[in-house]
C-alpha cells in the first residue's frame, strides 16, 4: 500500500501536508469546544453571572465550530482532489502497463483479472483514501489529544473510560475474528449461486430437454440455504454491535456522573464547582475518545481489503515485460513480404514441455501458406510468433530478412494484417472499426474502408443497416452475428493494406459459401501480399501454395494438398475425417 503511495506527485504531497495541518487545527478547535462548554456550564450554575459573558463564550464556541467546519470543508476539498488525482494517475499507469504486457504475462494474470485490477481494485483504494485517510489521521490525533486533556482530571473517570474502550474494542475484535472469515465464505457462496443460475440459464434448452427443472432447483436450493444461513449468522452477529456501542456510550456518561456525584460529595467546598464543570467536560471528551476508537476500528476493517487491492495492483505494475522493443524502424534489406522460421523452438517460461520444436520454413512474397493440425499441435502459437505476441525460445523468426526482435514493434506491426480467431469489435462505428489503428502510412480513407468491406463480403449486410457504414457497434459487437463480426475484422486487416496477412483460424465462423467467395476475392485484391492461414477445415486451405502440417509441435509434412495426401499420414487422416476419398482426389 505504501509503495503505491509513491505515485503521489509533489503537488499532492504538499496538499496532504496542508491537510494534515488543517486536521490538527480542526482537532484543536474541536477539543477547545468542551472548554467553553464547561465555562458556560459554570457560568449558568453560578448565581449572578453576566449574560454577556455567556454570550461571549457561546460566540467563541460557535467560532470554534465554524472554524472546524471551514477547515473540514477545505480538508474535504483537498482530500477529494488528492484521492481523485491519485486514482487517475495509478489507473493510467496500470492501463499503460497492461497495454505493454506481452501475451505471456496477460495469460498469467488472465484478462478478466486484469480488468478487475484496473477497475474495481483502484476504486477500492480510492475509497479508502477518500474516506479513510482523513479519519486515519484525525482519529489517533483526537484520541491521544483528548486523553492527555482528561488524564489528570480524575483517575476514576479515566479508568471508567478505559473500561468502556476495552469493552467496545473487545466486542469489535471478537466480531472480526468470528465474522471476517465468514465474509469470505459468503463471497464464495454468492459466486456459487451465480454459477448455478448461470448454468441453468446457459443450458436452459438442455435442462428442459431432460425435464431436469427439479434437479436444477434442488441444486439451487442447497446453495440458497447455505448462503442464507451464513448471511443470517453474520448479520445477527453484527446486530450486537450497535446496541453495545450505544450501551457503552450511555453507561459511560451515566458512570461519570454517578462517580462525579461521590467526588463532589467528598471534595472540599472550594473544589466542588470546579469538579462539576470538569465532569461535564470529561463526559464530552470521553465521548470523543470513544468515537475516535470506533473510527479506528472501522478503518481497520477497511484496511485489509484495500491492502489486497493494493497488492494486486502492485503485482501488475512490478511485472517485468518479457518482450523488449528492438530499434530498427526502417527497411534495411531488399526483401519484402517474406517470412522465415529458422530452427524455432518455443515453450512457455515456466513449462517443461516445448510447444514448438525445430520449426523451419520460408514463405516467399505473394505466397499463401496454410498451417493445419489437431488442437494443441501448436499452429496458433507458431503464427503468434510473427507479430511477437510471444518470442521464440530458440531459433529465429525473420520478416523481410530481419529478426522480428530487432524491429521496433510499431514498425513490425505496420507490415502485418492480423485477424484473430475471435473477432474483436470495438465500440465505434463500422467505419472506425475497419479504419482502426495506424499503419505508418496515410490515414485510411472512406473509399478504402468501403472497398475492404466489399472484399470481406460485408457490403450487403452493412449497407442494409440503419446508418450503413456509420452504424455504431455495440461493445463486443453484440448487435451483429458471429459471421458478420468476423467479416468486419477481416475488412480491418484488408484496409490496412499490409505486406503480410495473418489469419488465425479466422474463417471458421463463416459458412462454407461465404468462406470460399471471401478467399477468392481476397486473393484477387491482394495479389502481391503474403498470406499465412491457420485453419481447421481442409476446404479452406486445399489450394494454398504450401501447407505445413503440424503434430505435437513438430512439422510432419510440407507441400501442396496433393503431395501431402500421398506422403503425409497425419494430413491424410485429417482430410479423410472431413471429406470422402473420392472428393479428395477429384478436388
Amino acid at each position, binding site marked *: 500500500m505504501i509503495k503505491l503511495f509513491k505515485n503521489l506527485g509533489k503537488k499532492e504531497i504538499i496538499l496532504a501536508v496542508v491537510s494534515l495541518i488543517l486536521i490538527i487545527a480542526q482537532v484543536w478547535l474541536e477539543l477547545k469546544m468542551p472548554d467553553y462548554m464547561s465555562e*458556560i456550564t459554570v457560568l449558568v*450554575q453560578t448565581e449572578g453571572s453576566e*449574560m454577556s459573558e455567556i454570550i461571549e463564550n457561546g460566540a467563541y*464556541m460557535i467560532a*470554534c*465550530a465554524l472554524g472546524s*467546519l471551514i477547515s*473540514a*470543508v477545505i480538508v*474535504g*476539498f483537498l*482530500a477529494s482532489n488528492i*484521492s*481523485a488525482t491519485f486514482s*487517475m494517475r495509478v489507473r493510467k499507469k496500470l492501463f499503460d502497463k*497492461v*497495454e505493454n504486457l506481452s501475451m505471456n504475462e496477460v495469460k498469467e494474470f488472465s484478462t478478466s483479472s486484469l480488468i478487475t485490477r484496473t*477497475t474495481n481494485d483502484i476504486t477500492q483504494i480510492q475509497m479508502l483514501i477518500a474516506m479513510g485517510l482523513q479519519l486515519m489521521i484525525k482519529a489517533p490525533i483526537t484520541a491521544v489529544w483528548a486523553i492527555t486533556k482528561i488524564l489528570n482530571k480524575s483517575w476514576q473517570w479515566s479508568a471508567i473510560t478505559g473500561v468502556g474502550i476495552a469493552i467496545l474494542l473487545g466486542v469489535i475484535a471478537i466480531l472480526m475474528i468470528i465474522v471476517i472469515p465468514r465474509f469470505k465464505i459468503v463471497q464464495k457462496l*454468492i459466486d456459487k449461486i*451465480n454459477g448455478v*443460475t448461470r448454468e*441453468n*440459464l*446457459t443450458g436452459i*434448452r438442455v435442462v*428442459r*430437454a431432460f425435464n*431436469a427443472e427439479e434437479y436444477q432447483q434442488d441444486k*439451487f436450493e442447497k446453495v*440458497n440455504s447455505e448462503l*442464507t444461513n451464513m448471511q443470517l449468522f453474520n448479520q*445477527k452477529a453484527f*446486530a450486537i454491535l450497535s446496541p453495545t456501542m450505544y450501551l457503552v456510550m*450511555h453507561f459511560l456518561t451515566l458512570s461519570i*456522573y*454517578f462517580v462525579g*456525584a461521590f467526588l*463532589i460529595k467528598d471534595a472540599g467546598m472550594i473544589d466542588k464547582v470546579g469538579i462539576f464543570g470538569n*465532569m461535564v467536560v470529561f463526559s464530552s471528551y470521553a465521548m470523543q475518545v470513544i468515537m475516535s476508537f470506533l473510527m479506528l476500528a472501522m478503518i481497520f476493517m477497511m484496511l485489509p481489503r484495500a491492502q489486497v487491492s493494493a497488492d494486486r495492483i502492485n503485482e501488475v505494475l512490478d511485472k517485468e515485460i518479457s518482450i523488449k522493443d528492438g530499434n530498427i524502424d526502417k527497411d534495411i534489406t531488399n526483401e519484402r513480404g517474406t517470412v522465415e522460421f529458422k530452427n524455432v523452438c518455443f515453450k512457455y517460461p515456466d513449462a517443461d514441455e516445448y510447444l514448438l520444436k525445430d520449426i523451419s520454413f520460408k514463405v516467399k512474397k505473394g505466397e499463401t501458406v496454410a498451417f493445419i493440425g*489437431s*488442437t494443441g499441435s501448436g499452429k496458433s502459437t507458431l503464427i503468434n510468433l510473427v*507479430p511477437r*505476441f510471444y518470442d521464440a525460445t530458440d531459433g529465429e523468426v525473420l520478416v523481410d530478412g530481419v529478426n522480428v526482435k530487432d524491429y521496433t514493434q*510499431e514498425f513490425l*506491426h505496420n507490415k*502485418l494484417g492480423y485477424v484473430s480467431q475471435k473477432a*474483436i469489435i470495438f465500440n465505434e462505428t463500422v467505419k472506425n472499426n475497419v479504419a482502426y*489503428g495506424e499503419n505508418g502510412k496515410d490515414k485510411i480513407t472512406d473509399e478504402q474502408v468501403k472497398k475492404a468491406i466489399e472484399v470481406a463480403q460485408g457490403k450487403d449486410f452493412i449497407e442494409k443497416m440503419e446508418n450503413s457504414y456509420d452504424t455504431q457497434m455495440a461493445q463486443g459487437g453484440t448487435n451483429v*452475428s458471429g459471421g458478420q463480426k468476423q467479416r468486419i475484422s477481416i475488412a*480491418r486487416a484488408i484496409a490496412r493494406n499490409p505486406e503480410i496477412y495473418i489469419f488465425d483460424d479466422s474463417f471458421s465462423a463463416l*459458412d462454407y*459459401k461465404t468462406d470460399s467467395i471471401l478467399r477468392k476475392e481476397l486473393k484477387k485484391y491482394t495479389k502481391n501480399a503474403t498470406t499465412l492461414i491457420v485453419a*481447421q477445415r481442409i*476446404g*479452406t486451405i*486445399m*489450394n494454398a501454395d504450401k501447407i505445413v502440417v503440424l503434430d505435437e509441435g513438430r512439422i510432419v509434412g510440407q507441400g501442396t494438398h496433393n503431395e501431402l495426401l500421398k506422403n503425409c499420414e497425419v494430413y491424410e*487422416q485429417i482430410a479423410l*475425417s472431413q471429406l470422402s476419398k473420392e*472428393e479428395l482426389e477429384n478436388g
Partner: protein
Amino acid sequence: MANTVTRMPRRGPMGSRMGRGPAEKPKNFKRATKRLFAELKDFKILIIIALILATLGAVLSITAPNKLSEMTDIISQGLFMEMDIEGIKRIALFLAGLYISSALFSFIQSILMTDVSNKFAKQLRTRISKKINSLPLRYFDKHSTGDILSRVTNDVDTIAQTMNQSLGTLVTSVTLFTGAVIMMFYTNWIMALTAIIASLLGFIFMFLILGRSQKYFVARQEELGNLNGHIEEIYSGLNVVKVYNGKKESDRKFDEFNKRVYEANRKSQFLSGLMQPIMGFIGNFGYVAVCIVGALLTMNNIISFGVIVAFIIYVRLFTNPLSQIAQAMTSLQSTAAASERVFEFLDEKEMANQDGIVKKLDKSKVKGDIEFKNIVFQYDNNDKPTIKNFNAVATAGQKIAIVGPTGAGKTTLVNLLMKFYDLDSGEIKIDGVSTSELTRENIHELFTMVLQDTWLFEGTVKENIVYNTKNISDEKVKEVCKTVGLDHFIRTLPKGYDTKISENDSVSAGQRQLLTIARGMIQNAPFLILDEATSNVDTRTEELVQKAMDKLTEGKTSFIIAHRLSTIKNADLILVIGNGNIVEQGTHEELMAQKGVYADLYNSQFEL
C-alpha cells in the same frame, strides 16, 4: 417513458457496503413499496413485533434525558448542600435499567429484521430460480444472462440489506424525532423553538447540497461505466490493439474518460464529504443556541439548569434522526428500485398452463413417425416469419439431415420440435398425435437432444453423464462411456468417474462433446436431435465424436443439423432450408441431379 434505458454497471455484491453511490430511483416508488409490503405478508407478525420493539426502544431513549437532567439537578444541588446520594443511586439504577432494556429491544428488533429480510431474500431467490424454468424460451431471446443474474444476486441482496437497515431505522428515527419534539415542547416551548429553528437552518443548507451532489453521483457512475467499458474492450482485444498500433488511439480515449472520471470523482466526493462536518456543526450550533437561551431563562428563573442538560441531549435526539430518516429514505428508494426489477421478472408471462392435457405418449411404445404440417413461426423481435408453411414427413428410423446457411431457421426448427416455442399456426404430429395435445415434459421425454454448445455443469463426470435420468447403475455409465470411446480418457482423470468438471478444466471441446453424447445415450429416447460440431474440435477427436454420434442414431428417428458431408450423404432425407422454408428435399443423389441450391452449396466447399 422509454424503458429501454441501458442499465448502468452496478456495484458488486460486496461493494455496496463501502461506496455511497447515488440512490437508484424506482420508476414508481409508491407502487413498488406497496407491492413490496404485500409480498412481505408471510412475515407480517414478525415485522410488527420488530416495529413495536423499535418504537419502545425509541420511547425509552427519549425518557432517558429527562431522568439524566433530574440527576444533574440533584448533583448541582449537592454543590451547595448535602448530596442526595440515595436519590442519585435510584435514578442511576433506573437509567441503567432503561438503557439496558432499550439496547435489548433494539437488539431483538434487529435480530428479527435480519431474520425477516434474509428469509425474504431466500424466498425471492427461490422464486426467481423457479421462474427461470417456467418462462418460455422467447423470454431469453430478449434478455441477457447477465441481466437475470444481477437480479438473483445484486437486486435481491440490495433488498435484503436495505430493508434490514431502513425499516428499523425509519421507525426508530420517526419515533425519536416526534418524541423529541413532543418532549421538548412539553418541557419548555421557548427552548424547543430555539432548538428546532437552530437545527432546521442547518438542515436546509444540507439538503441544498445533497440535491446538488446527486447530479455528480449519477455522473460519476456513468463516467466510470464508460471508462470501465473502454478498459474491458482494450484488454480483451489487446492483440488487435497491438498489431494495429492502436495504442495511441486507445490512450487518447482512455485519458479523456479518465479525466472525466477524475472530475466527477472529485466533485461527488467533496460534496458527500461535506455531510459529516455540517452535521457536526448543526449539533454544535444547536448546542450553543440552547445554552444561551437556556442560560437567559435560568437566570430569570424560568427553568432549572437540568432543563439545559436535557435539551443538550434533545438537540442530539432531534438532529440525528433527521439525517437518519434522510438516509433510510434513500436506501428505501434503492430497495424499491431493486424490488421493482425483481417483481418485474417474477411477473413475466409464464408458459401456457397444461392442466387440461390428458394424452400421454409412452416412451417405450412410440413408433417414431413425425409430420410437419404447414408450420408457421415468427420470433417476437423479427418482422417476418422465420419458418413459413413448412411441410415434411419423417418415418420411423429415418435419418434426416437439415442443411442450409446460417440464419435460415435450422435451430428454430429444432426448437419447435421440442416445443420450446409454440407454433403460430400448423401442427407437428408425433405418431399422428399433435404436439399441442401433449405436455412439454412428455415431448422432452421422447427426444434426446445433443447440441453443439456442449453444456456441462459443475459436478462430477458421472453426475454430468447420468444427469436427471433415474435408476442408472455405475455399470451402465461405464458401458455407455466405452461405447462412445470415453472410458479410457475418464480413467486417466485423477478421480476417474468422480472427477469434478469445472469451467476451465483440461477437458477438451471434443471430450465435452463426447460427454454430452454419453448423456444423451443414457437418456435413450426414441427420437434424436443432433447438432453437429463445426469447429473447435480437433480432427482426431472429431472422428471419435462422429463414431459416437453414429452409434447414437442407430434405430432412432433422428434429426441432424448437419455440417459434414458424410452425414449428409448418408441421410435418408435431406431438408435444404433457405429463408424459412424447405427449398429442396430428397437424397443426396436426387438433389445433386437437380443442380439447385444444394448442389451449389455442396460445390462451393471445394473452391478456393
